[in-house]
C-alpha cells in the first residue's frame, strides 16, 4: 500500500497514522492510535449494515485523514511540551554496561515481576484448572453453558490483567483491551462465538496454566540469587564489624578458614555485591524472555 492510497481497514488506517507520526514521542503515537481506534471501532459498531471499507471512507471525511490527524497530535504535543514532563524517556538514554544495570528501571521491574509471578502463577493456574474442570464437568447439563461462557470471559479478563502487569513491569507493549469484535457483531451470541473461535482465548488459557511452572522458576531464581547476594554481603560485613563467626562453610575447611580472615570476608562482601548486579542482569534477561512469551501467547495470533 502506498502512503497516499486511502486506507480501507482499521488496521490500515492505524498503520498509516503510525507512519505519519514517525518520530513523535512513543506516548503520543500510542495515544493517537488508541483514540483513532476507539473512534473507528465505535463507528463500525454503530453501522452494522456497512462494510469496513465504506465506514473507513466516510471516517476519513469526518474523522480526518491519517496525515491530518498526525498533524493535530504533533501540534498538540508542541503546545504542551513546555511545563509538562516528556511522556517517555527514549531507550537510548538508558545506562548500559555491567554496572549500569543498577540504574535501569527495567531490571527492577523484571525483578518485581519475578517475585510476583509465584503468586499470580498459582492463582492463574488454580483458576484456569478449576474453571476448565468445572466447565467440562457441567457441560452435559444446561447450566454448563453459562458457566462455560463465564469461564471464557474470565480467562480473557485475566489475560488482559496479566498483560497490564507485563506491560507495567516488563515494558512490553500489551493490549489494553480484548481483541475487538468484528464489524456487525453486536449480539452477545456472535461475540461469544468469536471469542471461542479466537486462537487468543486458547493461547491465553495455555499461558495462564504455564504461569505456574514459570512463576515457581522465576520466584526461585529471584529469591535464591537475592538472598545469596544479600546474605554474603551482609554476613561478611557483620562478621567484619562484630567478629562473630556467622559465615561458615562446614565440611570445606579451606573455605571456612578463608572466610575467617579479613581479606576473605572483604572478597565475599564484594562477591555479594557483584552477585546483586548479576541478579539484576538475570532479571532483565528473564523479563525480556517472558515479555516475548507473553507477547506470543497473549497478543499475537
Amino acid at each position, binding site marked *: 500500500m502506498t502512503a497516499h492510497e486511502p486506507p480501507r481497514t482499521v488496521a490500515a488506517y492505524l498503520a498509516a497514522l503510525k507512519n505519519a507520526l514517525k518520530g513523535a514521542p512513543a506516548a503520543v503515537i500510542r495515544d493517537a492510535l488508541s483514540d483513532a481506534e476507539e473512534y473507528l471501532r465505535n463507528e463500525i459498531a454503530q453501522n452494522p449494515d456497512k462494510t469496513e471499507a465504506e465506514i473507513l471512507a466516510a471516517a476519513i471525511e469526518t474523522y480526518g485523514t491519517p496525515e491530518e490527524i498526525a498533524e493535530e497530535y504533533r501540534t498538540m504535543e508542541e503546545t504542551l511540551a513546555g511545563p509538562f514532563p516528556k511522556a517517555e524517556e527514549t531507550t537510548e538514554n538508558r545506562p548500559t554496561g555491567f554496572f549500569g544495570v543498577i540504574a535501569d528501571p527495567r531490571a527492577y521491574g523484571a525483578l518485581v515481576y519475578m517475585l510476583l509471578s509465584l503468586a499470580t502463577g498459582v492463582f492463574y493456574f488454580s483458576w484456569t484448572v478449576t474453571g476448565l474442570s468445572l466447565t467440562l464437568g457441567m457441560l452435559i447439563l444446561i447450566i454448563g453453558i453459562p458457566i462455560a461462557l463465564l469461564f471464557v470471559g474470565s480467562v480473557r479478563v485475566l489475560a488482559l490483567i496479566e498483560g497490564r502487569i507485563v506491560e507495567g513491569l516488563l515494558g512490553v507493549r500489551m493490549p489494553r*483491551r480484548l481483541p475487538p469484535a468484528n464489524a456487525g457483531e453486536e449480539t452477545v451470541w456472535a461475540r461469544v462465538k468469536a471469542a471461542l473461535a479466537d486462537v487468543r482465548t486458547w493461547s491465553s488459557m495455555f499461558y495462564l496454566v504455564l504461569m505456574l511452572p514459570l512463576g515457581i522458576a522465576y520466584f526461585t531464581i529471584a529469591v535464591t540469587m537475592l538472598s545469596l547476594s544479600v546474605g554474603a554481603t551482609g554476613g561478611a560485613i557483620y562478621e567484619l564489624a562484630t567478629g562473630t563467626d556467622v559465615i561458615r562453610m562446614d565440611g570445606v575447611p579451606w573455605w571456612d578458614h578463608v572466610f575467617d580472615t579479613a581479606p576473605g570476608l572483604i572478597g565475599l562482601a564484594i562477591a555479594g555485591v557483584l552477585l546483586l548486579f548479576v541478579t539484576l542482569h538475570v532479571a532483565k534477561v528473564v523479563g525480556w524472555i517472558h515479555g516475548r512469551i507473553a507477547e506470543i501467547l497473549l497478543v499475537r495470533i
Partner: protein
Amino acid sequence: MAGLSSLVLLAVLARAGREMYGYEIAKALKAEGATGPLFKQGAIYPVLRSLDALGLLSSRVEVQAFGPPRRYYAITDEGRDALGDWTGAWKDMRNFVDEALQGGTPA
C-alpha cells in the same frame, strides 16, 4: 482552532454534567451541527488529551469486555473556572469581530 475546540469541549462536558468518552463527545458535537471540512472529529481527541494534561479535565480509562477501552473525560473545577473565563473572553471577542465586520460593510 484548538482554542475554540477547547472552549466547545469544556462547554459540552460542563453541560453534560457527567463523564463522556471521545466517540460520544464526537457524536454529541455532530448532533449539534459541528460538521464540515473545517471541523474534523479526529481533532477533538488531541484537544481532550491536552485539556486533561492541563488539569481542566480529568480522565480515566475503562477497559471494555469487547472493543477498545474508553477514556472517559469529566470537567474539573479548574475546567469550570477556565470555561467561565474563556466564555467571557469569547463573548468580548465575538462582539469585537461582529462590530468590525459590520463597521467594515459599506452601508
